């Protein structure tokens, strides 16, 4: 199944991409499964996504836990802790 994946702030810069479509096997249809698949690309992907203490996740524009389930067409965003205000 396909999901839309977004990256923001320093993650976007370090990964060199802000948005892409990722094809995910049904057996890996959670945030954790998506993250593992991206980390297997190695290099910056492995480094940036390894430490979930400094990476936040949102599914369909709502904050989500690392084990949240995913459905086809979901929008998943990875970003650092927020610093607005």
């Amino acid at each position: 199944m396909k999901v839309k994946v977004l990256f923001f702030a320093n993650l976007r810069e370090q990964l060199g991409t802000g948005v892409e479509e990722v094809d995910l096997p049904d057996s890996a249809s959670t945030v954790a499964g998506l993250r593992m698949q991206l980390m297997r690309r190695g290099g910056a992907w492995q480094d940036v996504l390894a430490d979930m203490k400094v990476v936040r996740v949102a599914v369909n524009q709502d904050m989500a836990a690392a084990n949240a389930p995913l459905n086809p067409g979901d929008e998943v965003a990875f970003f650092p802790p927020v610093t607005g205000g």
Partner: protein
Amino acid sequence: MKVSVQTEDFDLGLEVLDIQQDNRIGAVASFVGQVRDVPMTLEHYPGMTENAINKIVEEARSRWKILDFTVIHRYGDLQPNDQIVLVAIASSHRADAFAACQFIMDYLKTEAPFWKKEHHPDGARWVNALEADDKAAERWRGLKQQRLLKP
């Protein structure tokens, strides 16, 4: 009742005038955040940002009597002294207005998807989230629990 995420500046006086029309209103509290000494670029997550702010405001409205409100957060390139954020709350009494204003600001700092990149003379760097901001938001959770225990 307005939430706006925008690049344009805002006028505190005009925004307050907008929310003080109802004659049940006896208090308006407002907060303006502005850039200190370093120019910055503010990035945000369009769509989620508005959702997050609306949720924070809804939570505030469940806790205090808010008659009208305006929340404006800017993004894009900002210079020292530029205004970043406005929270203005209109209530019948000052306690609700003050508390709701501070609550919304504390949660904006930890829940709304904005990221600041500072442009220092020696290069640009992303601002790290502060533990103090998490603590500021955290203390409202404790207060909610106390309220639930003692209705």
